């Protein structure tokens, strides 16, 4: 197949044919038929607000009129800058240190993981380590504020709710998930 370009007579002919392709006339009453089958829309409050927000507007200003607004913007910018000098949150969300603990004095289990809503119920990144001295499985994590569901996965095949959790929730499959509330900047122990 030889390469052709837009100046090629055949290409020009093809495009011309397509451009001038005859059109079947639309039935005369078509638009009336369509319109007779429609009902006026009743926009929701949200839609009205959205339309108001996205409505194109035009405005004019003079530098003298804009000066107070620019001054206010500058003040807010400087104020905002100083406000941000504290501990910086991760990805815009302030994380809280959390310690998961599961008692296992005789080390009956060979492996324990914490799986939950905060790690998409994946086991790979949440293996607990065994604290020989205290006979407990332990995992420290940083979680964003909110309530998180979790459960201990023992030996890769047994789901155990946290006996120390204040609340549990039915997971809909016959098991109970433990609930952890994270609401402050300080470390939480479970």
């Amino acid at each position, binding site marked *: 197949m030889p390469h052709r370009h837009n100046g090629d*007579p055949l290409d020009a002919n093809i495009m011309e044919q*397509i451009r001038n392709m005859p059109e079947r006339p639309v039935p005369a009453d*078509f638009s009336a038929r369509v319109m007779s*089958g429609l*009902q006026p829309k009743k926009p929701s409050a949200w*839609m009205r607000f959205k339309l108001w927000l996205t409505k194109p507007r035009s405005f004019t200003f003079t530098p003298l009129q804009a000066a107070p607004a620019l001054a206010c913007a500058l003040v807010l910018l400087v104020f905002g800058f100083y406000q941000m000098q504290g501990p910086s949150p991760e990805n815009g969300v302030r994380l809280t240190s959390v310690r998961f603990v599961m008692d296992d004095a005789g080390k009956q289990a060979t492996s324990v993981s914490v799986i939950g809503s905060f790690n998409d119920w994946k086991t790979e990144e949440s293996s607990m380590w065994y604290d020989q001295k205290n006979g407990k499985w332990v995992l420290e994590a940083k979680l964003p504020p909110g309530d998180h569901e979790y459960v201990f996965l023992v030996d890769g095949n047994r789901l155990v709710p946290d006996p120390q959790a204040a609340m549990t929730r039915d997971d809909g499959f016959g098991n109970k998930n433990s609930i952890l509330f994270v609401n402050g900047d300080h470390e939480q122990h479970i």
Partner: protein
Amino acid sequence: MDERYETEIIRDVLQGNMQRFEKLVREYQGPVFNLMFRTVNDDNVAADLAQETFFKAYSRLETFDTTKRFFPWLYSIGLNVARDHLRSRGRDFHVYMENPSVMYRDDGVRDEQTMVEERLDGGKMLEFIQQMAPKYREALLLRFKHGLSMKEIGEALDITVSGAKMRVSRGLDIVREEFGEVSDAS
């Protein structure tokens, strides 16, 4: 239709001014009806399917992105309506068309012999294009008849921009392969 004017109409319709929708119907009824006619080759069925397309567009208007052009969005709805219609009848998205040489339109300034020859040649090419696989035919029509950009063709056909480029390019190649020798000889 000017894009800003079109957006203004859609905003009015969304706010409850239903009658403004008729502007859009009148503007795009031709391409939508013809898409359906190419699909079913029946005026009445084509009108029903075109009507269904506008009903669906109206009912889904809240989901339309007003930063884009209305036509590619409407066309994609129309293509789905056409596909659903054929699927419901156990048929492929195929082409039915009356003899294009009869429908060929001339501008009346050429001599009769030239007109006859062009009608025959143009008729053959038109017939061929009409009978191409719809995925190539519609891409060619959107590009060269309706002047859509590759991005808009992608939106209308629900494919990527590179997919749209491929469709147009392949569609042209198919026509070239059929008419290349005749054209090169002339």
